[in-house]
């Protein structure tokens, strides 16, 4: 062990065990990751900033600590990367925008600070859809992020750089943020694992907001175990973020081996398998069959008012960012990319009643899901209804040759957890005939992330989709 290619193929958990046992050094992990970034990221554009000198210095210090017997835990000496809307003290944080191109925070985001305290090493900041307002990561200021499975395809977003960096093996884990699907969509499209936590489970302090009432942050990794390890480090109440909950956390790696026997998986028959590209439908149905084969029970459950969620999602996601950006939109409209500028202008023209009816709809939808959880333990559906489209596409064809608006189409399934505040885990569950990844979304009860990790781990123990790597 020690050849860079071998090091890069390790999962985060495997690398952590080898660091702990002093068989590999954080210096080697960082060096391999930085070399990989240099080799492939010129084509992928997944990083906005790379902290080469800082990462090497911290790796040396991490190695010294380990050799002296000081182990900070499973993230000690592990190279990770952060979406560029998380503040890192002393380092430029752009949120993928020209507006903040020179902003250097004087503080860490709480997620940044907790990962730092856990011993993680930051390789750099990841490219994203400008201000996280969009699902393509076609960034006009820092370059369009490319999908490592097919460079002509998009990586989804808004955490496109995070999904690509993990899939391309340039880091062992990344942090993304998710308002309407921005962790789960690029996780699915790039074939990696990503969790949108329960609203309030992870602090948003120090993260540039998109829509306050739906914003969350979470890890993106290659395996469910890796995701749980990173989640352990960042979950929990934060006095600096009043929206975080005091509900107890747990060790999210603890139940990963418990399997799915006897668990009840809900499917909404009139919604979850309608309006899908056939390969996506087939892969997710096959995923459900795999879980049934492991002992889970698949149960049809009706959610009476599930239709309407996309409009509610768009209305809220339009109005809240337009509020945050109100001054900048008047002072420097030309500094926004074309699509984000349009979305921010549109958000100023929806009525207050539209916004509040959408917020009332959230109450209704959440009540219906909480009631449904009396019958099932989780729901499983596709993460999005299509596989990766061409870079630059603003329309997508899902069925019958009909072109649809990308933004509405991409949130067909991710909007449900966003509106209800429920946690949701994307797990890779197949590939389409072009070799593009498909993801399925496991939706759980509030603060039940441990169960999502347990189901995801059981699925990965029975499948190998997460072990496949894009050819770069």
């Amino acid at each position, binding site marked *: 062990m020690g050849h860079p290619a071998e090091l890069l193929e390790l999962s985060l958990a495997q690398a952590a065990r080898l660091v702990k046992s002093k068989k590999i050094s954080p210096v080697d992990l960082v060096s391999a990751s930085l070399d990989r970034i240099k080799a492939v990221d010129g084509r992928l554009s997944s990083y906005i900033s790379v902290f080469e000198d800082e990462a090497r210095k911290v790796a040396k210090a991490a190695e010294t600590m380990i050799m002296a017997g000081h182990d900070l835990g499973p993230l000690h000496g592990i190279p990770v990367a952060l979406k560029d809307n998380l503040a890192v003290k002393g380092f430029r944080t752009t949120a993928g925008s020209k507006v903040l191109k020179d902003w250097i925070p004087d503080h860490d985001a709480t997620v940044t600070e907790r990962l730092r305290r856990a011993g993680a090493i930051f390789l750099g900041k990841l490219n994203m859809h400008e201000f996280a307002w969009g699902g393509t990561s076609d960034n006009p200021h820092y370059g369009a992020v490319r999908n490592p499975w097919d460079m002509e395809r998009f990586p989804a977003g808004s955490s496109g750089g995070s999904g690509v960096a993990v899939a391309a093996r340039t880091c062992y884990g990344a942090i993304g943020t998710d308002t309407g699907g921005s962790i789960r969509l690029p996780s699915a499209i790039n074939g990696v694992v990503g969790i949108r936590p329960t609203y309030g489970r992870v602090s948003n302090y120090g993260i540039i907001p998109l829509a306050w009432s739906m914003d969350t942050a979470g890890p993106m990794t290659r395996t469910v175990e890796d995701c749980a390890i990173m989640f352990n480090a960042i979950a929990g109440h934060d006095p600096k973020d009043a929206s975080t909950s005091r509900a107890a956390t747990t060790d999210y790696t603890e139940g990963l081996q418990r399997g799915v026997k006897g668990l009840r998986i809900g499917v909404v028959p009139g919604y979850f398998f309608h309006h899908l590209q056939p390969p996506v439908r087939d892969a997710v149905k096959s995923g459900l069959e795999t879980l049934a084969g492991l002992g889970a029970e698949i149960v049809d459950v009706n959610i009476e008012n599930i239709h309407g969620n996309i409009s509610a999602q768009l209305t809220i996601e339009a109005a809240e960012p337009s509020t945050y950006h109100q001054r900048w939109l008047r002072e420097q409209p030309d500094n926004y990319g074309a699509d984000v500028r349009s979305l921010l202008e549109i958000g100023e023209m929806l009525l207050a009643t539209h916004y509040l009816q959408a917020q009332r709809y959230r109450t209704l939808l959440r009540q219906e899901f909480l009631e449904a959880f009396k019958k099932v333990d989780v729901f499983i559906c596709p993460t999005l209804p299509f596989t990766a489209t061409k870079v630059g596409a603003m329309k997508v064809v899902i069925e019958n040759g009909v072109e649809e*608006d990308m933004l509405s189409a991409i949130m067909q399934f991710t909007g449900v957890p966003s509106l209800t505040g429920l946690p949701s885990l994307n797990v890779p569950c197949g590939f389409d005939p072009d070799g593009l990844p498909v993801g399925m979304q496991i939706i759980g009860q509030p603060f039940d992330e441990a169960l999502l990790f347990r189901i995801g781990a059981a699925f990965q123990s029975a499948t190998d989709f997460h072990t496949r790597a894009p050819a770069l």
Partner: protein
Amino acid sequence: MTSRKEVTPAAIAVLAAYAELPLAPGREAVINATLEAWIKDANELSRKMSAEKHRDLIPATVFSHPIDTEEGN
């Protein structure tokens, strides 16, 4: 609330004026189609949420969490 075609560049100019948002020339036409589609869907959702059976629902701007849960971390 109707779903008649009421979103036009001229209407957008008025909305922008109400919001004191100075739109650059031609912006109304750029956003017209998307705004029209979104308002149509938002009005449909408003009709649904105005039904008598939903009268007691309150907006979920921020979810509250149970106060009796054990403190973690």
